[in-house]
């Protein structure tokens, strides 16, 4: 039965078997494994890529979020993503090794020129995968690296057209992602399949290129000895890749792409030599970036034309072998130099550390709160009380933060407006936490410290505290405070709704949400500080929603401790 089945298959696949079972002159060796290792790595890319594409959503609003989801929330997602990303690096390394080996073996010589050129095309495709894949994450690293790459391409003749074609219009946006996604998952894989097919088919026509000097030896079939060596090599390469991916816990993911935030863009490691070359070229950087790939490509493409002697022994072809090896050594040196330059830059290290922290915060927030439908950067807005805190940071901090050098008003921090705060104010209105740094404090208009027995101060404090709308007011003290207020405060102040005092502000609802909204809108209103306040009016600068949010934050601060504020986390 088995025999009949084998014969049935053999009869129908003879032509294929003839092509694939040609032998290697001189027999099997680890020298011939590179091709199959590359096939394995392409398989890893195809498989992991398919899995990733089942999650990835190419739009500016969802790209980063979906990648972060794969990385941090899908079981083994980090592993698959890591294999895909680092597998591409492995492809570049093995492709490079395969290329150098082919050059040393003289495998590009007649009649194998086409195999060599198709191999160069494949190398180019692998780099194309890298460029198109890196931007898909839509994180800071991928987004800005793409800007550099597109920038270089734009400076080439016809570059503007290429840029429009790549980005899908005039700027980075949804079409940039959909187009690079199509290139990465449809176009390039298709082209790769065709070119790999042609590369392998033509190379089989001419047989494996044996080591020099072995051409005349008897050919031994690949199966099973050479195949075993191929599989062993594949297993070793995959084991190394897997180990590396596990050590790195997958691939990196920086903070969501932010067109407004600066980032130290660095290309993928296999483009670092070009990056370094641009630095070295100084004002000729654009020229260097364009010329270097042309020179490298030209040298490699031209090899079969200049090195035409049939003898493949490297000793007899030293200039050519030397040129290729020298080229890759140069690329290696430039790469190392680029990394060494970064390693010695303390300022860069600091910025990178800050970027790393931003990335971990964004990813932690994405796991905890999900990413808003408006897009990746808005994940930062999911922290508690983002809106008022962001406004405070921007509009209020310089005058009201305890650590501000140009503080002009009272400190606004945890406990602002609570009993202790109010009591402290009554006892020393121009004290350090209060009006000390205001212009008012230096004038005769400033309120004088209230000098009353401690019990009266406590009652007055309770009365003012009751204005905030707090629910834990002591009614006895409060009512006692009313009598004290009438005796000691009504010359300047009023507790009637909307009524200013004689020379000071009205205190009705002091510290309530509505009070804060009104005060923020216009501190110079008669019922508030009139002309005595230096604080700007925010009624036009901030929307009603924004003012209300800030007011809510101020109310929250009254009952908050410093630990509560710290627990909100950074913005």
């Amino acid at each position, binding site marked *: 039965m088995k025999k009949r089945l084998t014969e049935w298959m053999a009869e129908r696949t003879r032509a294929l078997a003839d092509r694939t079972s040609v032998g290697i002159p001189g027999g099997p060796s680890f020298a011939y494994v590179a091709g199959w290792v590359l096939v*394995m790595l392409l*398989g*890893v890319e195809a*498989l*992991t890529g*398919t*899995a*990733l594409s*089942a*999650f990835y959503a190419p739009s500016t609003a*969802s790209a980063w*979020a*979906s990648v*972060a*989801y*794969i990385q941090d*929330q*899908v*079981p*083994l*997602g980090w*592993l*698959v993503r890591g*294999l895909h990303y680092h597998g591409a690096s492995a492809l570049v390394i093995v492709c490079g090794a395969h290329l150098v080996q082919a050059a040393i073996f003289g495998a590009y010589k007649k009649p194998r020129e086409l195999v060599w050129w198709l191999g160069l095309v494949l190398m180019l495709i692998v780099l194309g995968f890298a460029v198109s894949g890196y931007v898909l994450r839509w994180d800071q690293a991928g987004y800005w690296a793409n800007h550099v790459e597109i920038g270089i391409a734009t400076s080439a003749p016809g570059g503007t057209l290429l840029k429009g074609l790549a980005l899908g219009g005039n700027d980075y946006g949804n079409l940039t992602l959909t187009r690079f996604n199509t290139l990465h998952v449809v176009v390039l894989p298709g082209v790769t399949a065709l070119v790999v097919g042609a590369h392998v088919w033509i190379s089989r026509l001419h047989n494996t290129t044996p080591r020099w000097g072995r051409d005349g030896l008897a050919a031994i079939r690949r*199966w*099973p*000895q050479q*195949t*075993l060596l191929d*599989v*062993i090599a*594949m*297993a070793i390469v*995959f084991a190394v890749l*897997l180990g590396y991916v596990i050590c790195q816990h997958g691939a990196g993911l920086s903070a969501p792409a932010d067109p407004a935030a600066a980032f130290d863009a660095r290309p993928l490691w296999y483009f670092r030599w070009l990056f370094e070359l641009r630095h070295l070229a100084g004002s000729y950087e654009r020229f260097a970036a364009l010329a270097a790939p042309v020179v490298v490509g030209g040298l490699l493409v031209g090899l079969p034309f200049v090195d035409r002697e049939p003898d493949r022994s490297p000793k007899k072809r030293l200039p050519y072998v030397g040129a290729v090896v020298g080229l890759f050594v140069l690329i290696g040196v430039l790469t190392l130099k680029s990394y060494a330059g970064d390693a010695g830059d303390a300022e860069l290290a600091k910025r990178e550390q800050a970027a790393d922290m931003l990335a971990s915060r964004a990813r932690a927030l*994405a796991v905890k*709160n*999900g*990413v*808003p*439908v408006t897009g990746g950067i808005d994940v930062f807005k*999911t922290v508690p009380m983002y809106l008022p805190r962001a406004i405070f940071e921007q509009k209020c901090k310089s005058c009201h933060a305890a650590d501000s050098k140009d503080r002009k008003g009272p400190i606004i921090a945890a406990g602002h407006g609570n009993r202790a705060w109010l009591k402290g104010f009554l006892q020393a209105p121009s004290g350090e936490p209060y009006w000390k740094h205001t212009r008012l404090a230096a004038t005769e208009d400033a309120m004088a410290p209230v000098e009353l027995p401690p019990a009266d101060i406590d009652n007055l404090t309770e009365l003012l505290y009751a204005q905030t709308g707090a629910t834990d007011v002591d009614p006895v003290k409060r009512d006692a405070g009313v009598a004290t207020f009438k005796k000691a405060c009504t010359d300047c102040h009023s507790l009637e709704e909307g009524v200013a005092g004689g020379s000071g502000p009205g205190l009705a609802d002091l510290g309530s949400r509505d009070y804060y909204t009104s005060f923020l809108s216009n501190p110079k209103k008669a019922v508030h500080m009139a002309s005595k306040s230096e604080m700007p009016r925010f009624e036009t600068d901030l929307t009603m929603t924004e003012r209300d949010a800030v007011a809510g934050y101020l109310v929250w601060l009254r009952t908050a401790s410093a630990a509560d504020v710290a627990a909100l986390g950074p913005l």
Partner: protein
Amino acid sequence: MKAATCALGGGLGLVIAVPALRVCVAPTNAQTVTTPSDPIDVGAIERIKVGAPWQRLDVIAPLVKDAWTTAHDVALGSAWVRRPNEQKLEALSSVCPHLGCAVGFDGQTFLCPCHNSKWSDSGALVAAAGPAKRDLDPLPITVVDGRLRLTWVRYKLDTATREPA
């Protein structure tokens, strides 16, 4: 040697394929879309007049987590609501218990536009009319501080008995 080659090759293929397959099937039994299980505010009680015919109310979730996104005010579906008297409040899911199309009401009967299933004014199935196997699904509804609060539940489709999906 042939066996070793096949075993090693097959093993390698398996090791490569397993993580990718694991990731692809990961969402199968995971709760990737989280809608509120708490009652959802569907408007003021005054919207529903006592004795008026069934009225359709959109059920809008304040927050929905869907894989990587968090979205506010997401429409989940709609419910038919009426108040036969001051004390009584009824709500029916507009999801057809057959295959999930949105059921309409013409003043007398409920009708599903997809396969012509029909229900009486009380939501009871008119068995001869179409393929649906059960009455329309009632939804829990209460009034808190003058606001209608409806609990959105999806039931298994095309079954005679009612089980949460």
